[in-house]
């Protein structure tokens, strides 16, 4: 049965789009039919992170308003056969999305795919609420930093009150994805620890994505980090998170990038 997943956070810049692309690619690599849907109308970026920015013809708004059929707007990934992108519009604004139209498109996507992953815009306004409305599962992306944790708490409140499931009195599955985590700084007491964030937000942990240069490298290249360098620490962390989403029991660890001594020496000099 299809699952609709929303990647959300409240705060901007914490890694929603990166996580959407990375989790989508990881799930598709596992053989599932996956579509990643950009809900950030007016500020689309998932196309860029997925490396499909030059292939966008129709977008979510065209499909919602009936100007294009869903298959015309879906962009198949060039690397993985079972991965698709439904881009957001860059020129329209979110008011062009009507609730009924979005519900219809989500229904069509549920029929075609195993996973429908919705990349939410930042904020708690209508755009973010539309992205989460049809979700069965939510991944709350949080940085170990006070403003991000506070905003995540607000988003968790919205997930429990404004989603279709919440309105029907059902529970929505919520998971925490802690991104840009630096275990060494947390150990030194300079950064909130995983346990601190878990205690404050009290939702189960999906994964810990370590701070890594690989993430920027992947977005520079327009490739989800899980495809760009699958052996890298963040890719491993996302792959394990995707396995947990699929129901596998995988122990949560914090992968580290093995640096050569030479590289470490120069990194220190530069810092």
């Amino acid at each position, binding site marked *: 049965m299809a699952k609709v997943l929303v990647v959300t956070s409240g705060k901007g810049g914490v890694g929603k789009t990166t996580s959407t692309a990375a989790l989508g690619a990881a799930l598709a690599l596992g053989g599932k039919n996956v579509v990643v849907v950009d809900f950030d109308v007016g500020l689309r970026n998932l196309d860029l992170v997925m490396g499909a920015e030059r292939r966008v013809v129709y977008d979510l708004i065209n499909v919602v308003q009936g100007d294009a059929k869903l298959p015309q707007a879906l962009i198949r990934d060039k690397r993985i056969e079972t991965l698709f992108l439904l881009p957001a519009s860059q020129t329209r604004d979110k008011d062009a999305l009507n609730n009924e139209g979005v519900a219809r498109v989500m229904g069509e996507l549920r029929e075609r795919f195993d996973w429908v992953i919705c990349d939410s815009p930042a904020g708690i306004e209508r755009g973010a609420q539309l992205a989460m409305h049809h979700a069965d599962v939510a991944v709350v992306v949080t940085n170990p*930093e*006070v403003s991000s*944790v*506070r905003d995540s*708490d*607000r988003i968790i*409140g919205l997930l429990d009150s404004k989603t279709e499931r919440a309105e029907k009195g059902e529970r929505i599955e919520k998971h925490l994805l802690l991104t840009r985590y630096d275990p060494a700084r*947390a150990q*030194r*007491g*300079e*950064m*909130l*620890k995983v346990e*601190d964030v878990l205690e*404050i937000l009290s939702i189960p942990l999906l994964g810990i994505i370590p701070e890594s240069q690989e993430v920027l490298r992947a977005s520079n290249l327009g490739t989800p980090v899980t495809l760009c360098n699958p052996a890298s620490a963040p890719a491993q962390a996302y792959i394990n998170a995707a396995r947990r989403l699929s129901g596998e029991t995988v122990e949560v660890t914090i992968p580290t990038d093995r640096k050569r001594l030479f590289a470490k020496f120069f990194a220190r000099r530069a810092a």
Partner: protein
Amino acid sequence: MSLFAFFTRKNSAPVARDRLQILLAHERSFAGGSDLVALLREEILAVIKKHVQVDSDKVQVKMDRGSAMSTLEVDIEIPTPSSITPGASASLVSAAASA
């Protein structure tokens, strides 16, 4: 930063955790908090206006959030026509306990 300050610098993460725990405990219960203060101010003012003529600018409602308890301070200036001083202040402090 002096060498002494460098070695005695306290960890900041526990401070972040404590601040968040206090803040979120309130935000969850009041769903915003600032709206509650505005609402209280309006209603308190309405009650007082029934009996005493007060200037709406002379009613101050403040909330101070602590970890063990929060205080709600209501400060109302009531004009006393018989006295020479233009305004005597009556201050009422009530404590609202919270987790």
